[in-house]
């Protein structure tokens, strides 16, 4: 077992983990503020992949030659439109159920997920869609003694750095801005926050928008990296990202990223050194072990009964 394989598998796992983490953020933020699981989030990510491909095609058609310019424009447009989808879903499917039984929004979320999948299936077709490779090339990673321990494509570097950047930006917003303070206040006690003059409906909508924006970043990066997608990709990735959120401690932002990376590493290392057939079994076994020892996840806070 040489250094190359270990290094390469760690890189594979980190890239996969960064994608899981970016999507997990959407689950964890909504859970943190509303105590519900937004099962439609995986499909918001799927829609963002389609949007990214559509904008890419439009910009190429409009004659934008430079790849970096095109990517920045596509990123901005994708975030904008995906955020709009996130906002709409909240407005239509969850806000009317705000004060109802806790299970009602959950069922509503599953309904939204089905609607989004079939909406894309009908409007875009059931076939696999693909985009050509935009960013070519890779760099070799060498250990101190000059031995190559792995190879990273530029797209993979982009994925990890974009994930770190957007997570950093999100953490900064939550910690240092008025908006972030309002979010945290709403998370701790919605009624009290409202009494103190915070428009909690507005805050919840903002959280959905931010979650969708992160999913949009993931959607664009995944489209660039894997080159193909269909209307059903949200399901598998959604389940994995949700697992990552639970593993890291649902409700915790750094937890989502940590959970994503751990899940990605588990999958790729187990697949690389033991067996690909059972990598999911291993990943979920790790999840169960963590939950047995720490029921609220790695970085989650134990739920205190609110009186």
């Amino acid at each position, binding site marked *: 077992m*040489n250094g*190359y*394989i270990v290094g*390469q*598998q760690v890189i*594979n*796992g980190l*890239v*996969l983990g960064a994608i899981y983490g970016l999507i997990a953020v959407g689950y964890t933020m909504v859970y943190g503020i509303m105590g519900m699981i937004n099962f439609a989030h995986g499909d918001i990510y799927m829609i963002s992949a389609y949007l990214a491909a559509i904008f890419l095609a439009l910009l190429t058609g409009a004659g934008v030659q430079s790849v970096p310019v095109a990517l920045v424009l596509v990123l901005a447009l994708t975030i904008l439109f995906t955020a709009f989808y996130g906002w709409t879903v909240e407005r239509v499917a969850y806000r009317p159920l705000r004060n109802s039984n806790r299970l009602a929004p959950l069922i509503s979320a599953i309904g939204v997920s089905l609607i989004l999948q079939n909406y894309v*299936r009908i409007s875009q*077709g*059931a*076939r*696999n*869609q*693909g*985009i*050509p*490779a935009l960013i070519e090339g*890779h760099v070799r990673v060498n250990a101190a003694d000059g031995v190559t321990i792995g*190879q990273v*494509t530029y797209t993979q570097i982009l994925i990890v750095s974009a994930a770190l950047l957007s997570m950093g930006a999100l953490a900064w917003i939550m910690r240092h801005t008025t908006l972030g303070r309002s979010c945290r206040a709403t998370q701790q006690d919605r009624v009290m926050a409202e009494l103190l003059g915070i428009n909690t409906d507005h805050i919840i909508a903002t959280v959905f928008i931010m979650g969708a924006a992160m999913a949009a970043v993931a959607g664009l990066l*995944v489209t660039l990296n*894997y*080159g*193909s*997608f*269909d209307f*059903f*990709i949200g*399901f*598998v*990735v959604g389940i994995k990202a949700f697992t990552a959120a639970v593993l890291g401690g649902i409700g915790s932002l750094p937890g989502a990223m940590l959970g994503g990376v751990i899940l990605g590493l588990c*999958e*790729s*290392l187990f*697949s*690389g*050194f033991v*067996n*690909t*057939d059972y*990598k*999911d079994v291993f990943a979920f076994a790790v999840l169960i072990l963590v939950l047995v020892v720490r029921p609220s996840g790695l970085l989650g806070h134990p739920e205190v009964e609110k009186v």
Partner: protein
Amino acid sequence: MSGRYGLILSVLSFVFGTLAFVAVADGAEAIRIGVAGPLSGSYAAFGEQLWRGAEQAAKDINAAGGIHGRTIELIKADDACEPKQAVNVAHRLVDAEHVKAVIGHFCSSSTIPASVVYTEAGILGITPASTNPKVTERNLPTFFRTCGRDDQQGGAGAEFIVNHLKAKRVAVVHDKDTYGQGLADAMKARLHGLGVREVLYEGLTRGEKDFNALVTKIKSQLADVVYFGGLHAEAGVLVRQMREQGLQAPLISGDGIVSQEFVASAGGPRFVEGVFMTFGRDARKIYGGRHVVEAFRKVGYEPEGYTLYSYATLQAIAAAMRATRSEQGDVLAKWLHANTVETVMGPKAWDAKGDLKVTDYVMYRWTPDGKYQEVE
């Protein structure tokens, strides 16, 4: 109130019931035949191949006078390549649509459970595309196929790997599905027979997009050939990630990737270039089918993959119905076992199991323009 509504309802249902009955009696001329396959989902391209082929065949047969003056009416059924849904649509075809024969399904994992439904209902079923050996190994008297078997296909793949590519280190990957794993196992068995052992045998998960960990593992095993048993959606992603990691070993797969969508899944023709695949001799080149191929091309559809197989399947059903003047499964099956049918793909005859007597697997290679060509 409710009593009156009940009365109106029963009158209405009686009227409509009679109308429906009249309609059926009037339309008894048309022979209903089901076409089942994945019309939605990731593998919808294959369902389209089956539907297009059958549709064109029905059009041509009807234009030539139908079956003793009766026209063929095709009924669509979507199984999304999922076994559970396949059984549901099979029951719908049999119980609600009253079809007299079925063309389908595509995925072996769908065909195997659905064929039981057709056999129990006593109707003829012919799959144009399901290659898993089990399809015809279960003594179903009224079920046939117009394609080869994976033990033949896997064997052809293994012989190519050993005799042409002279490969010593073969990595075998499958998608854990009936078709994919069955094909990979058949290839592996023949490979062992030829004295080569695989360096790796693993299953990936359908629907996933990241096989980088598996690719790194294949690379670390210094494989000089990768064999994949599965469908195009995963094959495309796999070959792209192989090339991106700098693994240049040729990829060899079976008839599960014979669709233009293989190119889309890989994200461009550049990645599929050089991929090998086993499939029946190109039916588009058989002389007797030339006018059919041209009819397809005229409407802008390239009859790739299993399109002509589906066309030939309906021809076989029609020939049996014409010769026996019957629609009963056992009568039609008896005739098909005993006779040769002249189809768009040349003459076809079946053995006692319902397999073709002659199959012709050849090797194809994907070219830089995203098409496939027979290896000379």
